[in-house]
């Protein structure tokens, strides 16, 4: 039950994009078409979960025993970058279909702050292993949900009569703000 609450909380209440404002660059950058948004979302779920497991292990098995917690940011960057590369190499050999489906989004995630953010939040919240896995997957799912919804809105927005000064990124950010407000409605759900 706790795990479900944790997952729902991570997806809706503490939505990584709309409540924590992490990962805004792909949110604006790859949200013009629903198709690409779905690709990005799936890639993030995949990488974030995997990255969280490795960073969590590195933190508690490597850094904490030596009192090197302050190195976490550096270490995490290193791990995520290496991991994404590794996953790419692995997928290319083992699952060509998945590799082709993720396409260019996989290497893009190397520099995604949502993935980094989830890894750091896991530590901040002091999660155990299972909690950490659930939270990471759910947060990434929250990212996917938000970006897909947002892409849907933007597709319609493109056809709408937007005043000149507001066109493009400006109106996208306003939309994101309104979506964020809407997601605040979920705040009452969790504890």
């Amino acid at each position, binding site marked *: 039950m706790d795990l479900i609450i944790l997952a729902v909380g991570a997806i809706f209440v503490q939505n990584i994009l709309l409540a924590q404002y992490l990962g805004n660059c792909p949110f604006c950058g790859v949200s013009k078409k629903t198709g690409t948004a779905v690709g990005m979302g799936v890639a993030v779920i995949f990488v974030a979960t995997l990255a969280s497991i490795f960073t969590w292990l*590195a933190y508690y098995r*490597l*850094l904490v025993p*030596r009192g*090197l917690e302050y*190195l976490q940011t*550096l*270490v995490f960057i*290193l*791990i995520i*970058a*290496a991991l994404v*590369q*590794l996953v790419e*190499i*692995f997928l*290319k*050999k*083992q699952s060509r279909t998945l590799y082709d489906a993720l*396409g*260019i989004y996989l290497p893009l995630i190397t520099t995604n702050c949502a993935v980094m953010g989830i890894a750091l939040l896991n530590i901040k919240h002091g999660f155990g292993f299972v909690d950490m896995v659930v939270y990471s997957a759910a947060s990434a799912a929250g990212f996917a949900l938000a970006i897909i919804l947002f892409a849907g809105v933007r597709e319609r927005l*493109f*056809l*709408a*009569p*937007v*005043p*000149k000064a507001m*066109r493009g990124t400006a109106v996208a950010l306003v939309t994101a703000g309104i979506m964020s407000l809407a997601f605040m409605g979920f705040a009452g759900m969790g504890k």
Partner: protein
Amino acid sequence: MLVPAMVLGGIAAVAAVALGIAARIFHVEEDPRFKGVADLLPGANCGGCGFAGCTACAEAIVRGQAEVNACVIGQTDTARQVAAFLGMEMVDNEPQIACPDCRGGIRATRKYDYAGFDDCRAAMQLFHGPTVCDHGCLGLGTCIRACQFGAIRMGDEGLPVFDPLRCVGCGSCVRACPKGIISIISETTKILHWNRYSECLAPCRQKCPAQVNVPKYIEHIRKGEFAQALMTVRESNPLPLSTGRVCPEPCSLACRRQIEDEPVAINYLKRFVADWEMAQDTRLHIPVAPDTGKRIAVIGGGPAGLSAAYYLRRLGHAVAIFEKMPALGGMLRYGIPEYRLPKRILDWEIQGILDLGIQATCNVELGKHFSIDFLRAEGFDAIFMAVGAWLDKGLGLDEDGLEGVAPGIKFLETYHHQKEITVTGKVAVIGGGNTAIDCARTSLRSGAEKVTIVYRRSRDEMPANPAEIIAAEEEGIEFRFLSAPSRILSEDNRVTGLEVLRMELGEPDPSGRRRPVPVAGSEEIVPCDLIIEAVGQEPDLEFLKSEGMPKLPLTRWNTIDAKEETLQTDVPFIFTGGDCFTGPGLMVEAIGAGRYAARSIHYYVTDGVIPPIEHRQTDLIPASLFDSISGVEEKPKVHEPIVSLEDRLGTFKEVEGTIDEEDAVYEATRCLHCGTYCYDHDLEEARQQAEQDRLQEST
């Protein structure tokens, strides 16, 4: 300090080793060419090619899923390098660039104005856009925002302006435009294009049998871009030097300017740009598509054959022309006299066509020296038959065997072969077409005392070019209208005169001309020593009876029968067009037929199926015909320099000259830009009416 450094270094080392091992274990045998091609691409990962990044594009190129020129940034240089890397040869082709169909200046009136309405696609959803014009640009600039290369900007006239230097032909604007007026145009597309009713077409463009884009080339001339003007003409007419001299300009008969003023001298302009190239003495480069490996035989080197050969070659096929006369040109060479189309000019023009890589064999006649079966055995994939209409129709007046009676075409042809022939005495030419006038003017130049043209209808019904009739009158040729020859008078088997009957015009016949009816007892004698009969021609189809010929059905006018839609005969690989299909017609009609046949043959040899042209425009579009037009300022038409009468008689000097550059640019400004300017006739009238009412009220 040592511990953290070691930890970080350790992690990095582990990661590096892990990656290294993974790269080993999970090594995927990749085509080494992927990397090679990827290195040649610019690495911008712009996605303009439609693939996710340059690596993906490189893979697609190596796999053959994309062309070597898939990269929209790298353009020709990159394509050439990639092709060289892959061991392919790149054939030069004209780059494909985006072209808008709507190039209008004055915008059509807005149906409504809606603040903040800023996207053509959104606008389209509301009653097909805010402007009255159904075809044209909405001018909200969606294509500008779609272009990743900054090649489109909004012009002063509220229409997008395309920069051909920046355009890479990626097609994002084409996908963005809801009106479908932008297209990525290659030479092949232009050659295969035929007018449709759904297009925004100027009347002259609709009327021209070859469908030359008249407003476009006139606009180029106005801007002083003579090379582009000529290339525009060549998109649909490979013989601008010849048409510029002999075409009777059906286009100018449709010119909208003539509602209020004289029509634009379209043909003078065409002649000017064509002569401009010849005066430079360097031929403009004509792009040819990569070889298709198909071979086409063209039988007959007249305008239809030359036109078909030219376009088929430009579409990438190997073309061979077979001509029975000693030189190419057909009626242009043997039917049109020197003073209208100097042979030097014709030779220069034909050489330009042959230079594209067309093989021509003269002095070979179908049915005598070769057969259709022979051509098939030689490996020709399709045959275009354009043998023309060279057989003179007779009058049926027992003229056989008489000395002093010559059929028109035969007369001109003989004259061409043996220049020293001199005509003496009085000559009567029967007929009212251009051939009759050519015969008359030729005999006058070669020593005839007096030349009379006998025609059974009136001057208005004469099918000859009006300019030719005027020139003939000026030169002193006598016309006897409404006179039909009834009997040939002869003495000792020599012609002495022609008996003619006076005619009256009756009811219009199916051709729309009034049928002449003889007046009984009105016989008169025209004394003459030579009678030239130029009363019509038909194809000489004697070869159909020879061996090795498939059975080709004929029409009731004794021409080769073919499907009107495709010009394909009952034998699928034989196509026909020009005079031998339609009966004697204009040169420009033959040129149009040649390109039309080239389109059909191209589809036939490549796809096997000839797609029909939907809504093909054949008649003038009613909506484009106006009764009146406002705001036209009268400007006199330029006149071609004409050789004085004294110089004309007795010589074969070219009678008409070419206008100079200044006149050409001036004449181009007389064009009303129909089909490129939005002009809402009804609204304009309503506006004028309102203005008049207002004036009347105030007085």
